[in-house]
């Protein structure tokens, strides 16, 4: 399960809207193995594309350092799908870097943004519940 504060939820959805027409991407930090997101880091999409994303490598380093300084680790990534369903694309599955991570997708293909979270292990995609917490 992915546990999100309302703040991180709206940060991800807001970032996804801000970066239209391109895909937005960012990293999630929390205590390892808990699924609890404490910080969502906005990152630059070096692909600058409506169909692809590449997390800027300096933003990756900055997020990792900040997470370490808080005693956290990077536990996942979020990105937006501007015109498609909130489901990992073949590219997302092929390039998923860590089986322990949570893969969040914000779809903007309908009027209301839809946020979903997945685990991707050895090419197998499994949706997981997302719990919104007040704090």
């Amino acid at each position, binding site marked *: 399960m992915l546990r999100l504060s309302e703040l991180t939820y709206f940060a991800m959805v807001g970032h996804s809207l801000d970066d239209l027409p391109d895909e937005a*991407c960012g*990293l999630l930090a929390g205590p*390892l193995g808990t699924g609890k997101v404490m910080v969502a880091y906005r990152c630059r999409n070096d*692909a600058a594309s409506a*169909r*692809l*994303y*590449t*997390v800027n*490598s*300096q933003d*990756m*380093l900055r997020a*990792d350092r900040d997470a370490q300084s808080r005693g956290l*680790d*990077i*536990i996942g*990534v979020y*990105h937006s799908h501007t015109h498609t369903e909130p489901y*990992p*694309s*073949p*590219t*997302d599955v092929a*390039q*998923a*870097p*860590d*089986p*322990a991570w949570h893969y969040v997708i914000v779809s903007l293909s309908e009027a209301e943004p839809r946020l979903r979270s997945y685990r991707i292990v050895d090419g197998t995609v499994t949706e997981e519940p997302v719990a919104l917490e007040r704090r």
Partner: protein
Amino acid sequence: MPVVVRLPTVLRNSAGGQATVQANGSTVGEVFEDLVRQFPLLAGQVVQDDGTMHKFVNVYRNDEDVRYLEKLDTKVSGDDVISILPAVAGG
């Protein structure tokens, strides 16, 4: 003089669960060779069989991505910290 190498969560299991290890070398490539000598499970995970850097990792010398320096030939000295992080991309 050994340099500090920081490992991402996905590679820690291949290095005895450690987040930070030490390795010797005067270039990033030599440091990785020493790393694989110490932790054979890391073979192929950072440097590919053809001797080039894996495209799914970012490697930094301190604050700089070595792709924009001299890649595996980037010089390192005792005060440097080498960080390995996932290169995150998708569609």
